[in-house]
């Protein structure tokens, strides 16, 4: 069963079609990758899915419900979380405060509770703290929780973002180039983490990635786009041998070198 269905999605900037009648599904419990050369429109697809761009035509159904006209925060509340291609941490805040942001849509206490410090509010704060720590432990950086996020090494900052996304308790997690800037060891741990997220937390994963090695290692299905159009879809081996993909990617793989 598909957790996410995209049908004939079209997005135009000015006269330019950034996404052109794109259709694909993401199966529940799967790990699916979206690949394509630079400028193929991958991040635009993510932005449409998460509500940051309003698509011009088509339909996006998440858990059997259209989310085309929803605002980003509503989509997150429905169980779709994302990370950003360039780190988008809350730089003036500590690691754990960053992760606590994910719990916002799962909690409800407002100004009055805070002012009176009601029992419900204190209980909820404790719960937020617990979940945030749990998520940090899951990605393995709990010991840094009270440091300022911007003072962490790059690889750890990435992990803060993952923990933050996990704290929204998603059903579907969108990773936008999670391996960018990571070294070999960190990539290996990322692969492990992606698998553990799926196995232990039963979260479906949809990722954009340039690193073909990583994509081929973890994905069960790959969707390939170029100039906003889908050019191939299927298993790793199937896609790799597709002539259209080779043509679109030729030279690109050499550059990446791994």
């Amino acid at each position: 069963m598909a957790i996410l269905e995209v049908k004939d999605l079209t997005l135009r900037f000015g006269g330019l079609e950034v996404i052109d009648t794109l259709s694909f599904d993401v199966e529940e419990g799967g790990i699916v990758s979206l690949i394509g050369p630079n400028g193929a429109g991958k991040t635009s697809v993510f932005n449409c899915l998460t509500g940051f761009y309003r698509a011009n035509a088509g339909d996006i159904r998440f858990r059997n419900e259209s989310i085309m006209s929803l605002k980003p925060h509503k989509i997150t509340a429905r169980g779709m979380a994302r990370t950003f291609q360039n780190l988008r941490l809350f730089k003036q805040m500590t690691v754990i405060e960053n992760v606590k942001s994910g719990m916002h849509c799962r909690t409800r206490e407002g100004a009055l509770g805070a002012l009176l410090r009601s029992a419900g509010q204190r209980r909820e704060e404790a719960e937020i703290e617990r979940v945030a720590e749990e998520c940090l432990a899951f990605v393995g950086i709990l010991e840094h929780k009270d440091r300022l996020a911007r003072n962490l090494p790059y690889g750890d900052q990435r992990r803060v973002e993952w923990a933050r996304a996990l704290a929204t308790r998603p059903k579907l997690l969108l990773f936008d180039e999670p391996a960018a800037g990571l070294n070999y060891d960190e990539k290996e741990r990322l692969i492990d983490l992606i698998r553990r997220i799926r196995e232990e937390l039963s979260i479906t994963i949809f990722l954009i990635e340039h690193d073909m090695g990583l994509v081929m290692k973890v994905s069960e299905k790959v969707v390939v786009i170029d100039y906003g159009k889908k050019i191939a879809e299927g298993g790793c081996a199937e896609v790799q041998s597709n002539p259209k993909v080779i043509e679109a990617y030729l030279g690109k793989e050499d550059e990446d070198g791994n």
Partner: protein
Amino acid sequence: MDLFDIVTQQIANSLILGSFYALVALGYSMVYGIIKLLNFAHGDIYMVGAFIGFTALSLLVGFLGDGWLGISASLILSMIATGFLGVGIQRLAYRPLLSAPRLSILITAMGVSLLLFNTVMAATIGEYKAFETGLGFEGLDFGNIHISYTQIVLVLATALLMVALTLFINKTIYGKAMRAISIDMDACRLMGIDVNKVIALTFFVGSALAAAAGVMAGVYYGSIHFFMGFIIGLKAFTAAVFGGIGIIPGAMLGGLLLGTLESFGTQLSWIGTEWKDVFSFGLLILILVFKPNGLMGRTEIERM
């Protein structure tokens, strides 16, 4: 006066008022375009420009007289002096803060404003200075409408300054550098553009234009005082945002439009003088809500 007379006269009024707004708005807009600073002190620069012009004229009057010759000379002197003042302020107060949080530099601008305002207040003991010139009320009469030669000359001078500015921005290497810096300052640094020099030049031009407006206002209205920059600063700021801040033709359009709105707002009996400011600010808010980047600003991709 019949309706036609009133409308024609108010159009003439709005041209004058709009010219002053536009000249001051240009300075706001240029500075904002290049370093994203709302230069709160700009209204006070206009005021200082008027005082420099006043001083220059009182010194020159013995040699050049108080007619157009003396006025033009003091106008140019004031533009140059005020331009350098703008550069000095930029160099001392704003440049050290280019990479600081935006609000700090905004507060600095307020500090500069207080400084200029209070210095002139202390120097003039808070008194109004009569800006006396040899210009009379003579002009062209069309029935009930009277347009003085002074008004005509001022509007023409404003137009001339704007044409010169447009040519400068579009045709010269410095103008191109200004536009490039407003798009991406870091890239310009990498390309070997002397960013500091171009920023200084922007302040020079912006301040000189404000000084021109200040001197012209002094000549036209016949009196200057230390807080003359406050209201026009506020209005010009509004005009700059109105047209799309950071966009040169936008500032001109914004100034003229705001002038027109105010003139006709004053005339309409259901608005009147008491409510005209509510009217112009209200309209500004509406425009920003529906067209958030101003009249001539580029629209960005629709976001939800």
